[in-house]
């Protein structure tokens, strides 16, 4: 297995300096990502799971070159990302694309769907054939060609997420990075969007990095799951193993917190859910 990994993180740390809360004490430092090492193989689907504030989005920003680590190294397709200024990362936009949680705020309301989807192509300087490509992409994600002339607000949440996926696929990337792509969606739409992600990852042979606070969502889509807590990876395991035999107590508490329908019907109460969540400080 000497193939270059899709994504490689080596001892990555990211500190943020918070605003000072008092004149006497020094500005507090938040270690959002703490010494994270992780290798994602080509074609692998990895889930990153953790509570709000655990550092998931910060980690993604580092992988995408949208932010730089305080220390450590980030490689995508074997090429360094951590020490490059944004203007040297054009190649990264072609190989790695993003889908975000809130399809409303990530889609420019003043742009037509056609231009939204073509945006990554235009950014690459591609001028011709974009019209055809947009139609092809829209149809690929289950929208009709006429969607191209409409605006984002004319679509439902699930349809907007399809538009985001179409845009991400436009430059024919190798890696798809998704930050909570279904957290804002209804159960039925959630299943549709998860199926779509599954389908395009399979169909285009993509590597998938999928962030969620809900382990049950990751379960269907990912081969392997990394559990993040206070900036650190506390457990990384193949999905089935993680669900069957979670090792870290934090993983167990995340699993216990999911209000699963079948377990609820079998009698699990809100009190049981809360009891499973480790008592947290603060």
């Amino acid at each position, binding site marked *: 297995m000497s193939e270059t990994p899709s994504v490689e993180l080596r001892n990555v740390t990211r500190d943020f300096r918070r605003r000072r809360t008092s004149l006497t004490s020094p500005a507090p430092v938040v270690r959002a990502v703490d010494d994270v090492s992780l290798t994602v193989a080509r074609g692998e689907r990895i889930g990153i799971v953790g509570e709000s504030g655990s550092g998931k989005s910060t980690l993604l920003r580092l992988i995408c070159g949208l932010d730089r680590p305080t220390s450590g190294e980030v490689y995508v397709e074997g090429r360094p990302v951590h020490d490059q200024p944004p203007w040297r990362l054009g190649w990264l936009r072609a190989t790695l694309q993003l889908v975000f949680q809130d399809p409303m705020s990530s889609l420019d309301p003043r742009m037509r769907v056609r231009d939204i989807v073509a945006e990554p192509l235009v950014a690459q300087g591609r001028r011709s054939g974009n019209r055809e490509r947009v139609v092809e992409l829209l149809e690929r994600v289950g929208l009709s060609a006429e969607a191209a002339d409409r605006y984002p607000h004319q679509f439902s949440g699930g349809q907007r997420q399809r538009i985001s996926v179409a845009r991400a696929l436009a430059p024919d990337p190798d890696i798809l990075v998704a930050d909570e792509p279904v957290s804002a969606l209804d159960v039925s739409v959630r299943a549709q969007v998860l199926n779509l992600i599954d389908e395009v990852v399979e169909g285009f042979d993509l590597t998938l990095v999928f962030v969620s606070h809900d382990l049950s969502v990751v379960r269907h889509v990912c081969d392997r799951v990394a559990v993040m807590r206070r900036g650190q990876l506390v457990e990384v395991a193949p999905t089935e193993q993680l669900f069957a035999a979670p090792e870290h107590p934090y993983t167990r508490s995340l699993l216990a*917190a999911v209000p699963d329908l079948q377990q609820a019907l079998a009698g699990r109460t809100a009190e049981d859910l809360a009891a499973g969540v480790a008592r947290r400080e603060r």
Partner: protein
Amino acid sequence: MAAAPAAAPAVDRTVLRVDGLSVGTRHTGLLHDVSFQICRGERVGLIGESGSGKSLTALAVMGLLPEGLAATGDVRLSARTPATRNLLDLPERDLARLRGDGLSMVFQEPMTALNPTMRVGDQVAEVMLIHRTQPSRGAVRRRVVELLEQVDLPDPAHLARSYPHELSGGQRQRVVLAIALANDPALLICDEPTTALDVTVQATVLDLVVRGVEERDAAMLFITHDLGVVATVCERVLVMYGGRIVEAGPVQDVFGDPRHRYTQGLVAASDLTGAEGRRERAALPTIPGSVPPAGRFPDGCVFRTRCTHADEVCRTQPPWVPRGEHPAGETAYGHACVHPAGGYGDE
């Protein structure tokens, strides 16, 4: 454990009685003939996809419908002695007196309910001062700390002095819950109170909500699109689509053995586990299509444009079919589908 319908109660324990509630703009009907009751101590879920009419139902009951929407029908808070008049006919002054007292609500986004420029302790105190439910200012102050403690906030006396932006999303929602419970309401309405929270915080907030209403023997209407949450928190559920209640009953029966095809679709789409303990590469079950915009639902069965079992018969409004007896009346347990799931020879 199937919920055994109890014998008719000797005393009327009904807290909320909604009868033939319809809501619409001048041109478009949004809710149609919604009827249900909730008894003292009962926790009832209201589920359905986004755009089904859940929030409008809650707002109509609270008398908080936005400008341009009008409601007809009958909504009564019978926990009051004497029972209220139809809330839909009540002048805003009288409604305001009920809100935060007999009737209170928790919304999805805690910031909409909190004043960003006011200390949270003062906000909890305010609702008691307005309704004069405590004998003195000192009593109010003590009660504030007690309430914040009840919703499991650490160091409540200190926390009471914080402003909302200094708290996490989960802490803010607890403050909102403390405000909602401050005057021991007869009815608590929660509209997606944990949808913006992550799973671990959600677990603790759900526990607090249940404890809060249990301690007060209050009635609760709990709105969410997450079936797992409803099954965890509620004993009974109303399924809404296209502004109509299409199925209702004990959670065990409605989710364990649904009748309406819409409920059946929701239950199937909720299950992300696939086969026992293994990720299925096979596609997850979904409901075809999407929720139409307001006013574009079909007549007849509202679900028929997305239903794989629809036929000619479904073009006329299916009658309500009671499924069993229930203390909260015939609207509490039944469905409106002419080709229901779950019978012999189904599928």
